[in-house]
């Protein structure tokens, strides 16, 4: 077991190197860079660009060097905890991302929680009542959530939330709290606004979760140990919860790693529509403006979270299910 964990941790290193190279390529590939766009924009507005100042910035951030030099500049910075500089905000990346990161994590975790709370009972019900009207109906409702594009759902929610409940359109809190410190009133305001994005982001994931739980549980329920348990007179509830459900939950654990990128992707478009102060809109803006250190470093942080998440889920799975450890030797 220990050797498995050590091996698994060492594998992370090449993975992270590959991720950083891929992210850098993505940032670097589109023609031009932030400065070119910036100068062009200023010229289009009829203003004279301060070329000297821009040239200084350009040299300071290594844009006079070939891409490979810039890559090492960026990676060494990252290793020392320096995420680079955002040209657009004229602030270090840490300061730009920092405040938004907490809100993103809040929205993501509440959404995950919401998904689980909804999907869990429905999935169990669907599996135990296979092909019943309840099964069909609930699956249909779940699929409807999956099938509606997120941005549209967001728009419609926003409109009706405003008409019916008088909640201000968009944002994660009322405007007057925006630059205030955390207080009781601010927390209440956040909670009031939070449910809209949570429901929108959560509905997309719920259907997928219901179907996977249903499929896994159905497989387990057909196995002989369930029949044995029932034949021996174990209470039906216990014969469901104690063994088959536990076995069917393996996929929950193996999902921990991929949860974060999936949630972030699903949330981006929603966040733009609802103008949430999360990292999604920031990232998209940075990608469009080629603000490469902001976008790159942030993607790198996200990806590292994911890699660590996958590591945790792999170790947890190997501990819980010895069959996993046996896979993957080479052909004879």
């Amino acid at each position, binding site marked *: 077991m220990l050797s498995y964990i050590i091996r698994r941790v060492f594998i992370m290193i090449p993975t992270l190197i590959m991720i950083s190279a*891929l992210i850098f390529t993505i940032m670097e590939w589109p023609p031009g860079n932030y400065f070119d766009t910036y100068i062009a924009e200023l010229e289009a507005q009829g203003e004279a660009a301060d070329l000297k100042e821009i040239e200084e910035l350009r040299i300071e951030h290594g844009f006079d060097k070939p891409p490979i030099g810039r890559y090492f500049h960026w990676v060494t910075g990252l290793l020392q905890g320096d995420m680079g500089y955002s040209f657009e905000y004229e602030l270090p990346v840490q300061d730009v991302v920092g405040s938004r990161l907490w809100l993103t994590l809040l929205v993501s975790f509440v959404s995950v929680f919401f998904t689980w709370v909804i999907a869990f009972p429905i999935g169990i019900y669907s599996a135990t009542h296979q092909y019943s009207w309840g099964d069909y109906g609930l699956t249909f409702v779940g*699929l409807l959530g999956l099938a*509606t*594009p997120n941005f549209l759902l967001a728009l*419609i929610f926003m409109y009706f939330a405003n008409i019916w409940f008088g909640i201000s359109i968009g944002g994660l809190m009322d405007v007057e709290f925006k630059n205030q410190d955390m207080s009781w009133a601010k927390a209440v305001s956040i909670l009031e606004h939070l449910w809209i994005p949570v429901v929108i982001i959560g509905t997309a994931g719920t259907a997928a979760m219901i179907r996977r739980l249903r499929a896994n549980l159905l497989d387990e329920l057909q196995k002989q140990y369930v029949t044995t348990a029932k034949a021996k007179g174990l209470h039906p509830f216990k014969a469901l919860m104690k063994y088959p459900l536990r076995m069917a939950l393996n996929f929950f654990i193996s999902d921990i790693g991929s949860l974060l*990128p999936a949630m972030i992707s699903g949330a981006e478009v929603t966040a733009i529509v609802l103008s949430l102060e999360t990292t999604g809109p920031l990232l*998209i803006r940075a*990608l469009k403006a080629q603000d490469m250190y902001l976008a790159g470093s942030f993607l790198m942080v*996200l990806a590292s979270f*994911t890699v660590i998440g996958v590591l945790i889920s792999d170790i947890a799975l190997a501990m819980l299910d010895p069959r996993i450890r046996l896979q993957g030797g080479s052909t004879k």
Partner: protein
Amino acid sequence: MSNNAEMPAPGVAMQHFVRDSEFDPASVEKLTPEQEKIFFASQTRLMWWKFKKHKLALWSGIFLIILYGSIMFSEFLAPYGLNNRHVDFIHAPAQSLHLFHEGEFIGPFVYGTTYKLNMENLQRTYTPDTSKVQKIRFFCHGESYRYWGVWKSDLHLYCPAKDGTLFLHGTDRLGRDVMSRMIYGARISLTIGLIGITISFILGISIGGIAGYYGGMADMVIQRVIEVLQSIPSVPLWLALAAIMPVTWSPLIVYFGITIILGLIDWTGLARAVRSKLLALREEDYVLAAQLMGAKPQRIIGRHLVPGFMSHLIATATITIPTMILGETALSFLGLGLRAPITSWGVLLTEAQNINAVALYPWLLYPVVPVIMVILAFNFLGDGLRDAADPYK
């Protein structure tokens, strides 16, 4: 034994014996005709029987076939052209279809509209004018078009009355008929998923196949690549890849570019499924037999291993097509998807992306209906196929 007569007498050595009559394997246990039908049916036939039982999946399949059939004749089905503008009818609401006028049956018709500009809030108001009855014509000659951009024609399935209008789903900000645009949009939206899934299928099977069959080092490297791709949220990946496409590309090439992007990002899940399946299947005796007979790995994977769970893969693929259709809508929403004049349902929905549309012009949201229906249909079809993929269960 009935044929004791053929046996030698006790104590006498048995002669070499070949019976003349033909061997009948079912001589011991006769099969009933029903059993015979099942036992001798081919795999595909068994799957079809199982699939037929799943009524919802069957109807979803039929619905999708009709829809995919319709994209062959979009020009004929749409009453107006894709980009025809009706400057007098900007943001006109949907005209509802009627059958009876003042208690008298006329057949399908719409009422004409009168237009007034509300000077207080500068909103265009259109009110149905019940004195103008505009009967819909069928198989009629209307606006001329070029069928698939080549053959000139002006035949339509249905068109508005002469000098009348027919906006069953209203018009957009340029006065274009939303209904016609939806019919044309189907052509792009429906094919984008198919091309994308083909790319992701080819990549997924070949890369996952290599990882699963060889295992060891190859598996290790491929697993890492998959992990890398899966650890980056897909929207930034789409964005970045879409940004790479030069602006000078024609919209048609952009369309192919986007399908390729969607395919390039989607294959990882499929590759994982193929890999884990092959890891188990490669231990089977028939693989060893093939190896001993000198078959190349390529042949063993393609000919012996993959067909064994192809039906499962197809079922999985069916369920991932909706992701691509939704992916295209998201990309178009962010302004990095398809560009005019290529029109997809996603492009149509970008018109409806502000709160004004929901409040004032809700008919601009109609293109979401086919999106939802297609996604639901693909999901049900996929469910049915997955159940049918293993007919022995």
